């Protein structure tokens, strides 16, 4: 019960500890789904500097050069949220950043890869890898970037929206496929 009270108090007292920000690049896939010209993500356990370092970790784990920083910021927001609820996660992140040393984000990719390889078996790296893979590709920004169209029920499925529009291979004979259903 005390734990619950403390948890509630912690939630109430929760204040912004940092922020990640960026601009939306006009014409980028992100611009298709962004709601304004700039974005900002509040952090509630990590500092802005820590957030920036972790973003570099996420980008090294899943390097998509033209994928907007905002997608990676979603990863950091998710792990920051975990850290604000769980002291062990916060300590683990801080410890991991300390192990990487200052200026990780500013180094070239080969050096970042080498630094991460050294700590690959750590809980910090494994948590960052899993979180990156879990969150990054589930963002609307990533959907737009990879050209993934997601759910289609709300649009009547892909039946009339390209499920069989591939033309660089022969068509399948009817006996091995089937007729298009006619809506009643």
């Amino acid at each position: 019960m005390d734990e619950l009270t403390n948890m509630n108090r912690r939630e109430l007292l929760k204040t912004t500890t940092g922020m990640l920000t960026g601009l939306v690049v006009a014409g980028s896939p992100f611009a298709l789904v962004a709601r304004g010209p700039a974005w900002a993500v509040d952090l509630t356990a990590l500092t802005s500097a820590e957030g920036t370092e972790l973003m570099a970790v996420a980008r090294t784990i899943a390097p998509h050069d033209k994928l907007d920083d905002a997608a990676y910021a979603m990863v950091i927001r998710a792990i920051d949220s975990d850290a604000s609820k769980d002291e062990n996660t916060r300590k683990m992140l801080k410890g991991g950043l300390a192990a990487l040393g200052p200026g990780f984000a500013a180094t070239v990719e080969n050096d970042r890869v080498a630094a991460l390889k050294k700590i690959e078996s750590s809980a910090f790296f494994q948590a960052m890898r899993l979180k990156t893979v879990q969150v990054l590709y589930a963002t609307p920004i990533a959907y737009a970037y990879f050209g993934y169209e997601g759910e289609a029920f709300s649009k009547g499925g892909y039946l009339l929206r390209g499920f069989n529009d591939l033309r660089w291979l022969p068509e399948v004979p009817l006996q091995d496929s089937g007729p298009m259903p006619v809506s009643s």
Partner: protein
Amino acid sequence: MAHIDLHNSSAVVIIGSGAGGGTLAHELTRRGIKVVLLEAGKRQSTETFSQVPGEAFLQLTWLDARTQSGNWGVARDFPSLPVWHCKTVGGTTVHWTASAPRLQPWELRVKTTYGDVAGASLIDWPISYEELERYYEIAERRLGVTRRNGVPGLPASNNFKVMYAGAKKLGYKQVHTGHMAINSRAFDGRGACIQQGFCVQGCKMGAKWSTLYTEIPRAEATGNLDLRIESTATKIEHGADGRVSAVVYRDGQGKDQRQKARLVCVAGNAIETARLLLLSSSSKFPQGLGNSTGQVGRNYCHQITGFVWGIFDKPVYSWRGATLAGVVEDEVINEPRRGFVGGYRLELLTLDLPTFPLVGLSYGWGRDFASIMESYKNMAGMFINGEDLPRADNRITLNSNVKDAYGLPVANVHVDEHSNDQAMRIHAQGQMSKLYDAIGAKRIILGPTPPATHNLCAARMSADPRDGVTNAWGQTHDVKNLFISDGSVLTTPGAANPTLTIVALALRQAEYISQQMKTRRI
């Protein structure tokens, strides 16, 4: 809906509402038999299915803890999720991909066909294919399976066009859009498939057969079904005569309830079915119910799987369309010259973008991992569904070191792959690689073995009680009024996706149970 009193000992209690339990509930209630159907999960509907893949996974999946051991890849790659099945009304028929092929006649006679295989506990089924065939026919009509009974096949998706072209280059003959329990035209009050590609998230169209919106509402309409959701069975009790007499379960409020029963049918998907039998030990049955010969939980099979992804120069958009509507059946043969016994299917498959890197790819990060992801749009996918060999020590046991929310030991899933399993996977992934290579794939990627979705054989039917848990009707050898009604009873798995067989066996079991009840044998 019926309201059956907890002290009413005349009803049949079925545990689990999936392909086996849901079908059985309908079949018994329409014959006038009162049924209490206990379902651990909640009730969703085509309206409530989430269309966010991560949310859908949490909405439908059985997430209670399990542990695992053994040399199979799942233990390494998915340590906290050995198996992937559902906890919701309709069970795993809510997330299944609706492939509904039959077993081949020889697949019911593997001991005779393969002979002695060292390290495998092969037995023949106690029923013949000819016996099962009549029920396959009923099941196919019930489910509206494509390419049966004049039902047209599903139209070919982009992903299938790739598979088809490659398969034909390799000389395969039996290549088509599959025997699918997905409406290729409106049928049974449900619409035709609109190729949305979200089969696994729960079909919002209802075009895919699921007991959730077919068998269960029909059972309710008889007035003989009492469906209790969020009700987790924790123990089956018996009387002094050794017959089962009641099921103890936790209700949605976390309270223990005890439902008396004339007869109990367990259909909790193989892992929980075996676990419940083991949890139900007593002074009379110290090893657990139905376990006098120590067979409960043994011979667990999951069918051999493994992804292959082909990356091409041009887009495939593999996510558009029914997830698994495509198959190559030429390898469903027993041809030991391939280096293994038993057969496998090549099956079409794709994974949505968020799920693909989590389930479809082996562990990785950095530039190479990212380059695969960058090719997602240009990627075609397949996997195999092959027969794994039963082994006595591949088994479900209770792990007393890890407890669930009720303080009961969780199930441990132990799988040591037989060398035959490994040889089959290598052969199949080789064939799939050749298939994509034959039509100019730029890169071919072999994926991991995903958490098992076909959980089978852990309370298998056997002619001899020393070899299995039930007789040819899923009736336990030890306890006359205790039945097993899910994939646990398959004697061996064969290479067919199991749901159609589970439904066929449930139809057959329902006939048997109602006859036995009528003649007062049970």
